[in-house]
């Protein structure tokens, strides 16, 4: 379970202070598929970065399974990102010098799995997203949709507690987007907690719960 308590993030822009997220408090239980939606600049991505321990909030706390992380060291946050969290970025963010298989097995190697185990798990993850036959391709040899699926495989390969997805379909055509969303729904049905930022209503409706944001505030929080 992940909890946000009085989470606030502000940015300084010249003389003025911009409140990106404003004193948010909510929790996401284990196994829930949460979609965070809202207009551009509403604070949804900023919220995701705070929850995903990629950024430090100006104030407030983030708890993952009861452990508060905002005051933890960079190393502890990195270790938690490695072991507990998985990330899917809008532009895939897979490493260009690694093949699909190597991209997928990298977090596993960092976790301490030996090469053989990491290979097996990575192959399993790639199989899950239907990319086993392209596992030896470099990202440059994969389409956008395939790259995003590699990104999903990397995010799920080590069975994270929570997957964070930041506009995962923004750069994909509608058919590929549908495949990616199908993969998310399937993962969620297997028990995977997912927090996804999207501005597309159609995909948000596939989630268990939808939080809508505007000007850094939660304006609605509904269960589908």
């Amino acid at each position, binding site marked *: 379970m992940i909890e946000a308590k009085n989470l606030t993030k502000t940015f300084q822009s010249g003389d003025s202070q911009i409140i990106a997220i404003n004193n948010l408090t909510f929790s996401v239980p284990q196994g829930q598929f949460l979609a965070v939606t809202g207009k551009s600049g509403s604070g949804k991505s900023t919220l995701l970065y705070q929850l995903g321990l990629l950024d430090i909030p100006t104030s407030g706390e983030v708890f993952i399974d009861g452990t508060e992380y905002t005051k933890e060291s960079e190393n502890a946050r990195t270790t938690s990102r490695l072991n507990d969290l998985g990330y899917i970025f809008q532009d895939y963010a*897979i490493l260009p010098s690694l093949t699909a298989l190597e991209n997928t097995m990298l977090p596993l190697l960092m976790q301490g799995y030996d090469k053989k185990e990491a290979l097996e798990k990575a192959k399993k993850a790639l199989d899950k997203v239907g990319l086993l036959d392209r596992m030896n391709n470099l990202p440059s040899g994969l389409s956008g949709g395939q790259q995003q699926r590699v990104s999903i495989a990397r995010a799920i390969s080590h069975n994270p507690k929570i997957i964070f997805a930041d506009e995962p379909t923004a750069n994909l055509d509608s058919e590929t987007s549908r495949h990616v969303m199908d993969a998310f729904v399937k993962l969620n049905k*297997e028990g995977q907690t997912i927090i996804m930022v999207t501005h597309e209503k159609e995909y948000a409706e596939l989630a268990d719960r939808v939080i809508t944001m505007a000007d850094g505030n939660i304006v609605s929080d509904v269960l589908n």
Partner: protein
Amino acid sequence: MAKLEKENLPAYRQAGFSRNISVGWFLARRELKRANIWTTTLIVLVMTLTFLNLVVVSGLLVGLIQGSEESYKKYAIGELIISPFLNRSAIEQTPEVVKIVKTMPGYDRHVVRYTGSARVESDYRKTIKPGEKRDGAGASISGVDPISEEKFSGVSKFVIRGSFLDPDDGDSILIGKNLLYEFTPIESPGFQTLKNVEIGSRVKVTVGDTSKEYFVKGIMSSKVDEFDNAVVMLDSEARKLTNRADLNASGIAIKLAPGTDPAIAKKFLIDSGVGEYARVQTAAEAFPKFLQDIKNTFAILGSAISAIGLVVASITIFIVIFVNAITRRRYIGILKGIGINKKAILYSYVYQATIYASLGIALGLVLVFFLIKPYFAANPIDFPFSDGILVATISGAFGRAGILLVTTMIAGYIPARIVIRQNTLSAILGR
């Protein structure tokens, strides 16, 4: 909703040193494997040239003196030299000493030489005006047995004009090139050289009050002062000129069988009583101190030049790694974002720098020991005072390789660390 069974991974909670090392290696290997081949080649070439600069520049400078020492050892003094005590003009009981020398373990061959100071004149028959100087030069004389001298040093190959002495050449001499104006054109009232001497010329050699005329049979150029500054004649002639009625010599040079320790051979001679009649020195002890001083100075000079090369190479690697890390700032951000420990990322850059340096060093070692060193051994640099060789020992080369490797690792570490310390999210978002 089905609940995921999280694997029990307590051991994975902390990324240890070995894991950072292995993930760093994983990343570095793939980076290098998929890097642009020409960029990699260029960097490796820079490292090779730096290594060559480290080894070859100082090696050649030291080699100039080393070449001189080796020639001195090979042609003049051998591995051991027996010489008179400083307050004596000859080795007492020379025949006895020679007998002992021949019995020592590791003995290979020896030569007995008779030396002294002389004046050589070419126009001694000409009438000169009062105050006018004759065409003459101060020289040392070296009396040798041509057969044993040739066997010992093979100096006949240094006769550049005319021919070497025969055992019955009582009326002939060889003249070292430094005594001839043609080869040593120095115009100084205090240092005279012979101007009108060629093969077949008659010269007068005077030692003290004793003079004798000789034909010039040959001119020697060996880059060894013992021959180039000397008039070489038969040992019997040298004894006559120096008024030496006994067989006591001025020097006995000894060569040892390969693998014989000169210090042990020296000890044998001293223990056998040679030390009562003369001084026994190993070649290292007999080398003039100034040669060692020049060698040390050249080594320092070579190291200074090499240090500049090392700094240039470090800056090159620093720039390469820095540019690489800066252009891959987002890549580094993603790695940190997905939980790759920053030390693992750092090590991957250090590995890359290390591999560049190792490849450069390996290529440099091959070039030094299989190409450059053999080349200079076969084609020494022709310096006036020596045949310059390349002095490069395996241990010395590996020492310098170690310095280059460590410097490169540091040069790779610093820029990578600067970039890796940047904010993870800013790096991912490219802001």
